[in-house]
């Protein structure tokens, strides 16, 4: 149980801090959240700065152009960038954290050479075409069809919950290539160029009023067969492989941010007098316990990942269950502290409260996570 960082880790942290302190003041002003091209440019610009400083693809293998950092270094990177207020990964999310690792792991030499460097250099944006209106929790029920026609696949169907679709160059797309096959078979992974004819992107407004997501409609879109990663009908496995890149770090920045928010909420309560309410005060104390523990659980998962070679296993479900609940509790408590201002969408915490509602749904509902924990960790019989 060693929670001290090695001299190498401390040096990595110190260098990163120094670099951040120098570079962050030089950043251009943040673009409006509604200006997608400006957001793309901003996010790619930040990625380019990371690339030039040697931080791009920190957790990618060296042979994929990455830095081959340890999970602990990745944790430090995410902790420090969050604490310094550095830009979020933004438009580079899918490229750096999902499609890129998939290509790095399962792509051919040509595919790696074509797709990976532009992601690292901040030149190309990827989006994700996985979920469908009728395939949410049950992703493998996806129905978007693709059939072979000469050197192309022809794709028809629709995707939902696609971030950055408006400004993406590529979409990592899951399609059904063998309609008769059992669910998880018959799925194929394709890299679809977003400028191909037949693609319609429609912004999808969420309950928070924002349009972070889009629906993507595909009408006989031609995708070269050369853009297929992995074998035909083997796309489910190809996609799952990518998870091994995550190594327990998925929520590092968020936990750091939540702890900062919690402290701000407490200070706000002191300022506006709600601190005198012992029930509310102790509730904030309890949340302090939760988020301290979540930070330690992150360190635990990262240590496990570092020790076992990278695959995080189902510990991620345990973390996600606890974290998504704690995050919702945090913004409920913030609303208590705000009092009438909790009805003000102009307050950041009010919007955060709304968006926190998705945490028990997106990327596997809490119900599904509990099934995973029960069946795969506790060995209970398959639920029915």
């Amino acid at each position: 149980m060693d929670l001290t960082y090695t001299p190498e880790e401390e040096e990595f942290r110190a260098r990163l801090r120094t670099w951040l302190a120098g570079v962050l003041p030089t950043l251009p002003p943040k673009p409006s959240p509604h200006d997608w091209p400006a957001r793309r440019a901003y996010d790619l610009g930040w990625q380019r700065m990371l690339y030039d400083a040697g931080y791009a693809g920190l957790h990618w293998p060296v042979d994929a152009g990455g830095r081959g950092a340890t999970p602990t270094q990745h944790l430090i990177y995410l902790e420090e960038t969050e604490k310094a207020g550095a830009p979020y990964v933004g438009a580079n999310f899918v490229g750096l954290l999902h499609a890129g690792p998939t290509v790095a792991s399962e792509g051919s030499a040509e595919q790696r050479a074509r797709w990976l460097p532009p992601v690292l250099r901040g030149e190309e944006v990827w989006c994700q075409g996985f979920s469908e209106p009728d395939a949410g929790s049950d992703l493998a029920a996806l129905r978007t069809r693709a059939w072979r026609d000469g050197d192309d696949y022809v794709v028809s169907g629709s995707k939902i919950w696609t971030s950055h679709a408006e400004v993406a160059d590529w979409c990592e797309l899951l399609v059904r290539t063998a309609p008769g096959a059992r669910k998880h078979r018959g799925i194929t992974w394709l890299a679809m160029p977003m400028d191909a004819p037949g693609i319609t992107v429609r912004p999808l407004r969420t309950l928070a009023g924002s349009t972070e997501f889009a629906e993507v409609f595909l009408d006989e879109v031609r995708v070269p067969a050369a853009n297929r990663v992995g074998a035909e009908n083997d796309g489910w496995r190809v996609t799952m492989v990518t998870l091994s890149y995550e190594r327990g770090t998925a929520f590092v920045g968020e936990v750091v941010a939540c702890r900062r928010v919690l402290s701000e909420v407490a200070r706000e309560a002191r300022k506006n007098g709600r601190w005198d309410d012992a029930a509310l005060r102790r509730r904030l104390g309890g949340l302090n316990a939760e988020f301290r523990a979540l930070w330690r659980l992150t360190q635990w998962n990262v240590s496990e990942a570092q020790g076992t070679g990278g695959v995080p296993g189902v510990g991620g479900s345990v973390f996600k269950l606890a974290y998504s609940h704690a995050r919702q509790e945090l913004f409920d408590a913030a609303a208590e502290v705000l009092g009438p201002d909790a009805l003000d969408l102009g307050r950041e915490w009010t919007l955060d409260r709304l968006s926190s509602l998705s945490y028990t749904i997106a990327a596997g509902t809490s119900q599904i996570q509990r099934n995973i924990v029960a069946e795969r960790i506790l060995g209970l019989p398959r639920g029915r």
Partner: protein
Amino acid sequence: MDFRLTDDQRALRRGVRALLEGRFGREALRAALDRADGEGAAGGRERADGRLRGDGRVLDRGLWRELGAAGFFALRLPEGGGGAGQGLPEAVLAFEEAGRVLLPGPLIATHLAAGAVAGAATGEAVVTSADGGLVEWLDEADVVLGDVTGAEPLAPLDPLTPVHRLPGAGAARTPDGLLVSLLSAAEQLGSAARTCEIAAQHARTREQFGRPVGAFQAVQHLCADMLVRVETARAAVYAASVTADPADVAAARLLADEAAVRGARDCLQVHGGMGFTWESDVHLHLKRAWTRTHRAGGATRSEEELAEDLVSGAV
């Protein structure tokens, strides 16, 4: 003792429901939302940072007058005085229906002003009232009760409930706080019952993993707990409408607030991603329910009253 609804009460409920279904069905709700939202769905990007667009007139004055004509506001005025001569139980049934369909507007303030403020009873006037640190619908009201000096507009969480914050008002109790609590609880009850229905309906029809999601015990149990909260709150709200006892009213509002807020959240959970879209109505129930919890001093005051009741009086 017969706690069941009388035939007249059932008829009244049917009547209000029919009126509201006819005049404020889903299309009318979404149209009101688009008005509140400035330019409708396409204006979403602007809406996100809280600016109201358009002329700011969201209330349907025609509907308001129809409500007046149907006796919604004058319900409890004596029959001789242009009212329907009904009591609080009937008002609670009417407000429950309003909560079901997310009927917008300062319904409670206008109802309470009927007979005292000209035009309120007939729906000619829209009346609002300061309540603690907030006032709803200030910009669209014809008559404003209470001191709203220095009111500042908020970017309202519930797009169909514009609110202003009042400076330093704290949580001063309005004289009719008891009735505000009760009628607000009735609205919460209606909303809670509705989200329970919506969740069950979705669970019966939405398929995942080759079966309706309602066949999963986890979803079943979310829905069952929603109903338990609804029925418990219903008993409390109806009883409080009969007794008008302050502790009964405090209990009703606590349980109805909880049934509405948790019901909307669980409904959202049952809906998964589909409930997370602006197109779904579920979030409107949640935002309205959250908004109503701030009325009449909120849960904290009700809990304190109920605690005091335990040591002060007979049980």
